[in-house]
């Protein structure tokens, strides 16, 4: 694909026609960009993993890395031999005018379909989860188009990128 239009307009000047012809030449960008973007998406944020980090995100990425290491310390490395039982957790969102709410987060690999909430008569949406002790980032997707953080939990530290997310601590 070299242009979004099949027949782009031509300048009425020979010099500019030569300029445009040069600028329309295809330029290749490698799949490493896609892979890095996917890594950022899977991590639930835009933190770069390229050799040259995004400058303006450097501070946020550093904070996110600290938060991530804290998460891993709790979630991935429980004491050897310790039995870690899942705990019941109830998430709620007041959204009386909405027709569908799902929760998307670390606990369901950021799936937008895996964990729907059910409506209650009070205009509240609710879901019960079983989560092991740890900290989880998550957000709500309302009517398939609007991200909403959980007002009942603190915001994630790198909330200036991607959707607004909250952090749930299960102890």
């Amino acid at each position, binding site marked *: 694909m*070299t242009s979004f239009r099949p027949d782009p307009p031509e300048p009425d000047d020979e010099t*500019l026609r030569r300029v445009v012809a040069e*600028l329309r030449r*295809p330029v290749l960008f490698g799949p490493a960009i896609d892979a890095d*973007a996917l890594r950022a*998406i899977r991590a639930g944020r835009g933190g770069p993993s*390229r050799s*040259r980090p995004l400058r303006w995100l450097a501070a946020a990425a550093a904070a996110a890395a600290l938060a991530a290491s804290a998460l891993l310390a709790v979630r991935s490395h429980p004491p050897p031999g310790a039995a870690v039982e899942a705990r019941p957790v109830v998430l709620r969102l007041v959204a009386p005018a909405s027709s569908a709410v799902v929760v998307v987060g670390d606990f369901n690999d950021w799936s937008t379909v895996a964990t729907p909430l059910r409506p209650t008569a009070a205009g509240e949406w609710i879901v019960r989860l079983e989560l092991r002790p740890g900290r989880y980032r998550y957000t709500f*997707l309302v009517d*398939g188009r609007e991200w909403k953080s959980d007002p009942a939990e603190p915001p994630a530290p790198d909330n200036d990128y991607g959707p607004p997310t909250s952090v749930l601590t299960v102890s």
Partner: protein
Amino acid sequence: MTEGDAALVARTLAGDLDAFAGLMARYRSALGRYALHMLGNREDAEEALQDGFVRAYWALATCRDPQRFGAWLFRIVVNRCRTVLRRRRPDDRATLLPDELPTRGDVSETLGWREEIGRALARLRPHYREAFLLRYVEGMGYEEISRLTGAKQAAIRMRVKRASDQLRELLRDVVST
């Protein structure tokens, strides 16, 4: 048969990241070309592109016409390029031309045609360069550019004209040699 954008968007929204990878691969080079010409170097272009992809993923549910995903994604990358340009230090903008071109630039004869074009593009004001690229390289109509940039069509026509005049002037010596 190649899967259409709308189908890939639907699969992405259902949690299939491979589908989003397909969308990125489809538009990567076309969008990268715009970012490269707009920003003037590959590193910044890759940054804008990657950033645009991630933002597009998180905002995908708001793409109201998935069949026109490419145009929607283009708008995001155009905005990311603007952000990259805004972040540049004042020193980076020191060589920009004023609105009215006072004198012909000193054009080196040692650089190739492509390098000369890159140098000339870099000397245009960003909104002139943006309008020129969208109009002549990406082939957009004025109405579409207006929707994408938020500027009035008359202003865009003026920007394209000034960009054209300045490019022609900057490249005059190169063409005549």
